[in-house]
């Protein structure tokens, strides 16, 4: 079990980094990486949502959706509701984060802007829930996976935003400024993360 958790941790943060090797969650990765400060805020929000979402979805899946039970003679299996339920749960969690953020850190709320509600459709969050199901992970492992994947996302986002802050000061040729050079940098970063392949 311990070994497994270690594998999950390293795998989720470095080897199979959601952003840089699975290319999930690219939208917020590009959208909120212009400033390190907002990247940190986004990272916090994603860690919160992804960990909780993984926990809640895996609970629901393990104890309700995957179970077959009979109601008045008919065998019922609700697995087909998986995606729907996952999205609803994630959306609710995001809504919670939004309400809390708006109350306690209005500047961050402003800075994150549209990307905060968009965590709902952040494929990384849904991806984590879905991958947990596919890999048949238990509740604890799922939560750890969700948490570590979020950490991987945060790592990539923070690295990338600090690089972009630096690139802001660089004399990048005009046609490549902004998102273009950001994507190129992300590409090089992805190449770097390939170095971790084979670790697990």
């Amino acid at each position: 079990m311990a070994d497994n958790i270690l594998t999950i941790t390293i795998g989720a943060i470095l080897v199979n980094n959601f952003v840089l090797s699975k290319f999930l969650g690219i939208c917020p990765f590009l959208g909120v990486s212009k400033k390190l400060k907002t990247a940190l805020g986004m990272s916090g929000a994603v860690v919160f949502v992804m960990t909780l979402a993984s926990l809640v979805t895996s609970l629901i899946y393990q104890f309700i959706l995957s179970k077959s039970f009979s109601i008045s003679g008919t065998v019922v299996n609700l697995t087909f509701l998986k995606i729907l339920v996952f999205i609803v749960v994630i959306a609710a969690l995001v809504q919670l984060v939004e309400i809390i953020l708006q109350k306690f850190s209005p500047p961050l709320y402003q800075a994150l802007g549209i990307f905060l509600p968009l965590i709902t459709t952040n494929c990384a969050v849904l991806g984590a829930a879905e991958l947990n199901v596919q890999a048949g992970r238990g509740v604890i492992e799922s939560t750890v996976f969700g948490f570590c994947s979020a950490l991987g996302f945060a790592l990539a986002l923070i690295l990338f935003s600090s690089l972009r802050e630096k690139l802001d000061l660089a004399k990048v040729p005009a046609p490549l400024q902004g998102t273009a050079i950001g994507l190129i940098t992300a590409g090089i970063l992805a190449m770097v993360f390939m170095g971790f392949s084979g670790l697990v």
Partner: protein
Amino acid sequence: MTIIITSLLFAAILGALLALIIGAAAKAFAVEIDPRIETVTDMLPGANCGGCGYAGCADFAKAIVGETVPPTQCPVSSPEDARRIAEYLGITAEEKEKAVAVVRCSGGRSTTLRSPYNGITDCRSAVVVAGGAKGCDYGCIGFGSCARACPFGAIEIRDGLAVVHPDLCVGCGKCVDTCPKNLIVLVPAFVDVHVYCNSPEKGPVKRKVCKTACIACRKCVKAADSAEQMNIKGFLVETNYSNPPLPDLVEKAGCPTTALRQASRHAAGEYEGVSK
């Protein structure tokens, strides 16, 4: 059938549960915001030029809604835009006349003495070294800090002199603060005649370093239709912007140094030192 009902029931329960949590949270952490701010932001030009003195249009909108500033303070919006905002908010807005910037110097590289300068080519940086290394202590340094600050591309550096294009200038005043020599002023846009000199020195001193300085010879004062159209202040003549002269004064006065100019023709490069 059972499956459908169970699914519906399950989804409903889940939804209700989550709705309950969110509802409770929304109640507990409620934040009030004024929806009018967003509407006003949308009604502003969205150029985020900062000409109003606030950090962007959204910030300005907040101030308008808070009734600390009138909507007319936006230099870019037309008077109609400002009126619409005022109507929406139910406040009154006075009309503001359109302003335009004037760089009060005509001393280009060919008309004013300069020392060789070696350093950062930016006025605000150059001024910390030897006041910009220009023969005239008051003149335009010509490294274009104002041109870079202008969000509308209305200032051009020609032969080491900043020249405002009155037709492009919206009078936001961003350049006014950038000029380390405080050469730029906002004046009513309908006035076309200005004195392109800012040096309070005596005539001979100015002439020694600059061919196009105002030497306060009073020719324009005498040629003006009424006595108050051009005012003398020390060794410098100034247009009286509350009683401005007509554009033909430039022809009539025949300024010996060409410091008296029409803004439109100055921008078109028809005078000494600014020719294209």
